[in-house]
């Protein structure tokens, strides 16, 4: 009678079903499902799959197991020489043990035997695909041993196991690769904006979890270098080590004495069958991995017992370990390692190591690309900040330089503020300018609280320090002066050119301030924090140095130009002062001599011949030339006032009609003399309209009004066609304002040129053809004379008849 626990031998082997089951597995522990199916076929209570170790040592190890009561055997290893299973493996023949009590080779300290009340078993030798030997054992807990038929079935079943196991391994490997690809693809899509290191690390953790899940590892960890350049320190990025357990190592160094260090140093993968046998297998391991050392920083055996609540004397399964380097080209970027399967199969084979290497390659690619993208994004952000900073700085400088008296100290201060804002880690900064007289660099601008630390004499002495620019150079500033390029000092303690100003300084950059070949000074940037300057720091320093050079050049040029401007204006004034007296005197003398009927009396005296006429003509011409000289001299004086933005001084009094008309008639008469008589240009002042001054109370400076009208007459005469007349008349406007109008027929002023006509030195193109001498400021001065009178200059565009009108409108009092 069969025990209720015995499973009867059922149908023969269903190969299709076995293969399908194998293909459905997603973890290696799925082999247990296959063992269940085979045990059912053979009619066994339980089934254990054994395999040898990598070095054909003295033991066989449990690869997988199944029992009807779902309990795991505590037995993890069997001695080859002293066990029935070992004999089966070594002889290659099935061993049938009909009664375990009668076998000398069966030990009863296995709880599986006692728990399940095993009575008999058979051990069928098998050969795994890697050339490793092993056995498939079937166990029964009934008296009746396996008969021949059942033994044949068992052998057939055992023959299938290596292939079925390989199917599972292949399937699991493929599934892992697919999952890894899916994870990375999703990560790529989501990581398009801010590439934070946490998010990148999160993806690596996902890969570790996948690997651990697939191979039932207790620990899968990844260590990576944080930067794309070559440090030799690799930090923990992700791990599946239980969170309630302390993880002892946060980083590894290359070439340190450890399994992980060996992988980093040699850029080769490592696989160890059982860490517990490291010392026993050392010779063989050193044959494969020369110099390999195991530190056991995880205290793996203790940890395993603790995590799985095993007693101190409970046997441990093989504690397998594998690690693969993460490469980027020829460089080692990190390592991925996985160890200790939590359930069967309790080892990692070469195929698993290949999968680990594949995952390592994916991680390497992803990590490097993500960091590169993150760095690029950061760099872009920094450059954008720099562009923004410099743009704002340029606006500030533009505003400062357009002031009457630009203050370069403010420009320097703002530049240093901008430097600090765009360059991370720029804590203490300054500008030193080069003194050509003494050959020294001296501080002119400061940024950073450290400048104001200490007593007032310490602060003063610090700021007053000077640095010679000797050749050969003995300081960073001197080096920069000589070479005209940025000088970085990543570690001040190791640099021969560093001259300490602040003890807190850890690193420094000295950039030249200059433009083309001209050297003005240096920009000093100091870092005091633990982090290095970012990669682009030197480029930023160079840009800021060039900007400062440009600003300094502009400021100097503006100073020069303003000085020149002031000197020119002063020269105008000086010349005008020198001229005014003799010109006025000559004018007065001529006026007094030629006043009234003097010229008629002279003509009577001299007679009417050609020579006599020439004499009187010359008197008139001299008078005209003198008036012109007076007009030009006065224009220069007015220009000097206006160029200095000073108001035109007025001596206003109520305008008298007769006096004004007399002055204007004299001016018109003298103006006529200035033009070629052959062209027959007439000048006429109509006195009638000026009578309005008798009723309208108009105040003005008669000399300046004469000046304004003379400027207009000069313009009108220059541009008039021959045989025309320049006319001057006056009338009140509709608003009852007094208005003097000068008209001429000549070169036109178009409507769109009217607003230009009153600007300094403007002339239309056609006007340029007909004038030679002249400064073009006449109308501009008239405009200002009228503004000084609260009045207005109005230029009426030329009409069809080539008539141009210019009106002087006096404001109401």
């Amino acid at each position, binding site marked *: 009678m069969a025990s209720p626990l015995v499973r009867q031998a059922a149908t023969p082997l269903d190969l299709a079903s076995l293969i399908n089951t194998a293909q459905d597995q997603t973890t290696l522990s799925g082999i247990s499902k296959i063992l269940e199916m085979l045990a059912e076929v053979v009619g066994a209570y339980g089934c254990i799959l054994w395999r040898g170790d990598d070095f054909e040592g003295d033991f066989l190890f449990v690869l997988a197991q199944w029992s009807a009561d779902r309990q795991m055997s505590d037995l993890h290893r069997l001695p080859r020489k002293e066990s029935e299973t070992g004999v089966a493996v070594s002889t290659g023949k099935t061993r049938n043990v009909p009664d375990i009590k009668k076998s000398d080779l069966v030990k009863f300290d296995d709880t599986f035997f006692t728990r399940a009340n095993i009575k008999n078993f058979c051990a069928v030798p098998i050969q795994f695909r890697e050339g490793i030997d092993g056995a498939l054992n079937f166990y029964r807990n009934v008296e009746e041993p396996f008969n021949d038929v059942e033994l044949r079935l068992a052998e057939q079943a055992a023959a299938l196991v290596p292939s079925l196991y390989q199917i599972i391994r292949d399937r699991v490997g493929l599934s892992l690769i697919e999952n890894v690809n899916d994870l990375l693809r999703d990560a790529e899509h989501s990581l398009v904006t801010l590439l934070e290191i946490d998010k990148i690390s999160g993806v690596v953790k996902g890969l570790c979890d996948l690997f651990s899940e697939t191979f039932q590892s207790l620990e899968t960890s990844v260590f990576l270098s944080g930067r794309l350049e070559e440090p030799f320190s690799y930090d923990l990025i992700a791990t599946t080590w239980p969170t309630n357990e302390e993880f002892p190592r946060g980083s590894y160094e290359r070439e340190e004495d450890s399994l992980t260090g060996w992988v980093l140093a040699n850029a080769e993968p490592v696989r160890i069958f059982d860490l517990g046998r490291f010392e026993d297998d050392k010779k063989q391991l050193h044959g494969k991995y020369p110099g390999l050392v195991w530190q056991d920083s995880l205290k793996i055996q203790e940890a395993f017992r603790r995590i799985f609540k095993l007693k101190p004397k409970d046997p441990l399964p093989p504690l397998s370990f594998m690690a693969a380097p993460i490469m980027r080209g020829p460089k080692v970027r990190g390592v991925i390692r996985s160890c200790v399967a939590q359930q069967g199969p309790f080892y990692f084979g070469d195929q698993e190591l290949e999968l680990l290497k594949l995952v390592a390659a994916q991680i390497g690619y992803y990590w490097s690309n993500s960091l590169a993208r993150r760095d690029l994004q950061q760099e872009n952000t920094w450059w954008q900040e720099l562009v923004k900073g410099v743009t704002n700085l340029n606006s500030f400088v533009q505003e400062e330089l357009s002031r009457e008296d630009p203050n370069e100290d403010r420009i320097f201060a703002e530049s240093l503020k901008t430097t600090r804002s765009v360059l991370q880690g720029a804590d203490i900064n300054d500008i030193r300018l080069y003194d050509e007289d003494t050959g020294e660099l001296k501080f002119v601008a400061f940024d950073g609280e450290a400048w104001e630390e200490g007593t007032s004499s310490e602060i003063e002495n610090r700021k007053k320090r000077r640095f010679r620019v000797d050749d050969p150079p003995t300081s960073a500033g001197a080096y920069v002066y000589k070479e005209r390029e940025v000088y970085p000092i990543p570690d001040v303690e190791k640099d021969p050119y560093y001259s300490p100003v602040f003890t807190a300084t850890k690193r420094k950059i000295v950039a030249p301030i200059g433009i083309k070949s001209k050297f003005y000074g240096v920009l000093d940037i100091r870092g005091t924090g633990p982090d290095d300057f970012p990669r682009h720091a030197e480029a930023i320093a160079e840009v800021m140095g060039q900007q400062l050079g440009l600003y300094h050049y502009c400021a100097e040029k503006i100073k020069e130009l303003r000085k020149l401007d002031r000197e020119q204006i002063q020269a105008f004034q000086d010349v005008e002062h020198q001229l005014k007296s003799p010109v006025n005197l000559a004018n007065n003398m001529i006026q007094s001599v030629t006043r009234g009927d003097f010229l008629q009396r002279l003509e009577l005296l001299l007679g009417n011949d050609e020579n006599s006429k020439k004499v009187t003509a010359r008197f008139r011409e001299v008078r005209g*030339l003198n008036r012109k000289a007076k007009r030009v001299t006065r224009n220069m004086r007015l220009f000097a006032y206006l160029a200095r933005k000073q108001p035109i001084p007025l001596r206003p009094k109520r305008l008298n009609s007769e006096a004004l008309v007399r002055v204007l008639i004299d001016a018109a008469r003298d103006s006529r003399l200035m033009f070629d008589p052959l062209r027959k240009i007439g000048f006429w002042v109509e006195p009638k309209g000026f009578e309005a001054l008798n009723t309208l109370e108009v105040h003005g400076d008669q000399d300046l009004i004469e000046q304004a009208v003379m400027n207009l007459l000069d313009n009108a005469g220059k541009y008039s066609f021959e045989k025309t007349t320049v006319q001057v008349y006056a009338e009140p406007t509709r608003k009852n304002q007094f208005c003097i109008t000068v008209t001429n027929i000549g070169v036109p002023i178009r409507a769109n040129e009217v607003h230009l006509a009153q600007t300094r030195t403007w002339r239309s193109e*056609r006007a340029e053809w007909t004038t030679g001498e002249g400064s073009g400021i006449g109308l501009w001065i008239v405009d200002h004379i009228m503004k000084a009178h609260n009045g207005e200059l109005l230029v009426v565009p030329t009409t069809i008849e080539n008539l141009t009108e210019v009106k002087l409108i006096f404001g109401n009092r």
Partner: protein
Amino acid sequence: MKVKTPLRVLLVEDDHLQAGWITDTLERAFPKIKVKPIRTEAEFYYGIDAIVSNPPDVVIMDVMLRWTDPAPDMVTPPDVVRNEGYRRAGLRCVQMLAERSATKNIPVILFTVLSRSDLELESLCSIDNLLYVSKESEPEELINKIRNVLSRE
């Protein structure tokens, strides 16, 4: 020194008062003199053929000349005049004389307020008969320059 008579002088000067004074001065110094006035660069430019067919003995050339007098039908100046402006008008006229065989050897006296360095005469270095008198100098200098030029012939 015997001055060729009658002395024919081409006076290119746009200021009528200057022209009158120069003419009077020359007439006092050279009794039998004929002074032909030209008042604008356009007058010289379009009258060059007449000058070539009846060349003067000496030319007195103002440097800064206006192109033309205002008129309803003003002729647009050539590009070189528009580009260089009135300050080099006299030098352009000198160049025109130098390019014609009938006039290239006529002595030309630049009579101007501009200093020699202001004139930028590099382009006219090849013209041997080019002379300079400043308007600030005494009238005798102009007269002596004419005498010297004519006595070399």
